[in-house]
């Protein structure tokens, strides 16, 4: 059984608030780079970039990151060359964007992948949903909504670009 917990309006508002918080925390958008974690994190990163463009009239580069090769739960071979994230991160302020923060393992993998690409000034983490149950010492700097969950529940973020509509659902 699935139940909607964030509707389209609230999701838009969360992304709007995260955008303002990014400006607040970074004291502007100098040297800012957004990196979305595939798949849905990329679309969320693009939406934040679109909002920053509306406000500041500046294009913020958006990178994409596929962390499959860096995951610790799959026996894929480490890539021979570093993964191309399409943006330069050295001396940048990176905001890593993902839809759901859960164990923290995805984020750890993403951090490894970013570090392989260069040396950023700092890395912040923005997530639409923080559902708890961390297995690593990782926390988000920008959170759309904290949603306490049970381990056996599943959080599904839908984005218009691929799912046809925006919302967040919880499956039991």
């Amino acid at each position, binding site marked *: 059984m699935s139940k909607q917990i964030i509707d389209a309006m609230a999701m838009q508002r969360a992304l709007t608030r995260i955008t303002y918080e990014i400006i*607040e925390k970074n004291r502007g958008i100098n040297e800012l780079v957004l990196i979305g974690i595939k798949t849905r994190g990329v679309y969320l990163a693009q939406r934040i970039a679109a909002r920053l463009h509306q406000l500041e009239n500046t294009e913020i580069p958006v990178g994409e990151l596929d962390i499959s090769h860096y995951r610790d739960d799959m026996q894929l071979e480490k890539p021979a060359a570093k993964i191309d994230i399409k943006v330069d991160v050295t001396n940048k302020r990176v905001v890593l964007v993902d839809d759901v923060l859960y164990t923290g393992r995805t984020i750890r993998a993403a951090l490894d992948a970013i570090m392989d690409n260069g040396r950023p000034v700092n890395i912040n983490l923005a997530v639409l949903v923080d559902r708890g149950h961390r297995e690593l010492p990782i926390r988000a700097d920008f959170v759309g909504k904290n949603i306490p969950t049970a381990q056996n529940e599943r959080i599904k973020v839908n984005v218009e670009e691929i799912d046809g509509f925006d919302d967040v659902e919880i499956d039991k």
Partner: protein
Amino acid sequence: MSNRYLILADGSTYEGIGFGSEATTFGHIVFNTAMTGYQEIITNQIYHNQIIVFSAPTIGAGGINHDAYESIFPTAKGVIVRDVAEVSTNRLKRMNLDKFLTRHNIPGITGIDTRALIRHLRETGPQKASIVDFPDDHAFDQLNATVLTTRQVDAVATPRAYPNPGTGSTVVVIDFGLKHGILRQLSLRNADVTVLPYTVDTETVLSLDPDAVIFSTGPGDPRDLPNSVFELMRQLQERVPLLGIGLGHEIFGLANGASLVKLPFEHHGTNHPVKEVITNALLYVPQGAGYAVDPTSIDHAKLITTHIDIIDNSVQGLRHRDYPAFSVAFFPDSAPGPLEGTTVIDELFEMIETKDRF
């Protein structure tokens, strides 16, 4: 019901039929384009010392209801309508508009060509006006000699703190003559509210350990308020999530270095289209403002313009770059008006939820 007259400071006279109180009053004349919600408008304290002209052809068909008061005692100085409805079929009504105005000593005039009057006001701008029994030289002399107070806030804001208890977040409202709609929206979100007089100091506000502070709506020109108000805003915005509404928005702008411009004609209505800059989305919102923040005066290193009126490009919302503090010129409590503006209040509560992260 006898003939009465509306006279304007520029010498024009409009004849109609009196209703409500028989008092002779003086006020600043403004027009409101709302189709509904006259009770909320008349009881809104931003209309302190003002004579309100309604552009909607018939006013009063909904009666006066218990759930549509925006203040306890309205302090408007007059109501000008094309046609006052004597009959209301609303089952919630307690009385008709005529009786309500009589009770609160507010005169009304019906039968005035409000379209012609509003066109005239759009050309000549806001001015003094008077509701009189006879428009002779004496009446005009009296009108011209009248000096309207610039201390409207003192007349309508609470002099004392009072609570509006709830079980949720602690919100302090600094009162400049608030609309009840603000408290209603806070109650809907279970907030534990304390309303404080605007003369309060920063320590007293912080001693209540608020999760958020709201600077309320109110009448008049904020530049007539004491400097302590702007200092209070500057100190609080650094420490706690903050929302300015209406007059509170103007104070937020002034406190952060912007200046105000007088609007060529005031914005009063429930149907103003406003663009949310960050998403390019359009909101229809209720407004009631005689001033707007001058866009050329905004220090972009400090403030972001968040909302713009798409009719005249006036600034309708601001946000601080460094703190979780923002403001809207329109009324997000939607009393009366479309509900979409209430998302501004949701934003404040979402700010409260996430403020501990920094």
